[in-house]
């Protein structure tokens, strides 16, 4: 399923049913206008009981502090429920912002879905 704003596209999929793993793929600028759409997609997946997420950021060109805040909050929330979040293919510019905020150590970042899946299923996300 795909949702979009003027500058951001969000595609959500369930890539595994049992236990469920949700995939969110973002493309474009994740700025303030994209926040409600991303939140809605996360909530939609959460409402199905999913506590394991992959967030593909490969095509994201910009992310603001509020977008990072949503992700950090999701990580903490899902970790406390025994699930987790793995970020896929994070561009250098986005990693730099994570680094500026000193949050890289709290995030799981991988370059392929298979290793992301392993982490999510191991309970170490």
């Amino acid at each position: 399923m795909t949702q979009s704003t003027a500058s951001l596209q969000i595609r959500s999929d369930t890539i595994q049913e049992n236990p469920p793993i949700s995939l969110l793929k973002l493309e474009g600028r994740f700025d303030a206008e994209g926040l409600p759409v991303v939140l809605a997609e996360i909530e939609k997946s959460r409402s199905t009981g999913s506590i394991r997420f992959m967030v593909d950021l490969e095509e994201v060109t910009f992310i603001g502090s509020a977008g990072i805040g949503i992700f950090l909050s999701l990580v903490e929330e899902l970790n406390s429920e025994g699930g987790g979040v793995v970020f896929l293919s994070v561009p250098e510019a986005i990693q730099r912002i994570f680094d500026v905020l000193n949050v890289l150590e709290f995030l799981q970042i991988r370059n392929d879905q298979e290793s992301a899946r392993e982490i999510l299923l191991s309970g170490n996300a």
Partner: protein
Amino acid sequence: MSTDDRNEGKAMRHREFDALEEDQVGSVTFRQESTYEGESADHRTGACYEIEIPARIESIGPLCAFLNMIGECHGLRESELQSIEIAAYEIGLNIIEHAYGFDPNARIGVRMKMLPERAQLLFLDQGRAFDMESIPEPDMADPHVRRRGRGFGLQIIRKSMDQIRYRRVAGQNQLYLVKLIGNRAHARSRVLALQKGDIA
């Protein structure tokens, strides 16, 4: 992300800026050989640019595109452009939310001056006083802070720019920022430090 993708992203940002209508952004002017009140006492020649935008969230993207275009024209590196863009974005949002309280009729002035070794930015607004220096840094090691998911913008601004100064003058907020650019900036700062005896 490929070079083609990055170029397409830049082209998209340029189109975003080009598509702006005059009444949405206000005037855009270009000046040279001038300094602004509130800047440091640096009288060297630099190219100066000004833009005034409505204090609305939808104006921030075009503002970033405008600053990006200037930076590109002056040969800034990708990482320098990104630092300026994220800082400008977060400052714009802070002014809209905290200084103006989402007043749709308010406006934000932005001046950018390019010198050989640095980019200077000055944000001007007539909203409530807001001194970012008075706000403590978030403790990112605290899981409650991360879970709250808010209040990270100021930290991004602080870490993205090399110098930040705020002052309130006659009801106006003036936020002055500097980004050092290029190898010449590094060389020059070392020469100055040597002259001052800061480096052996």
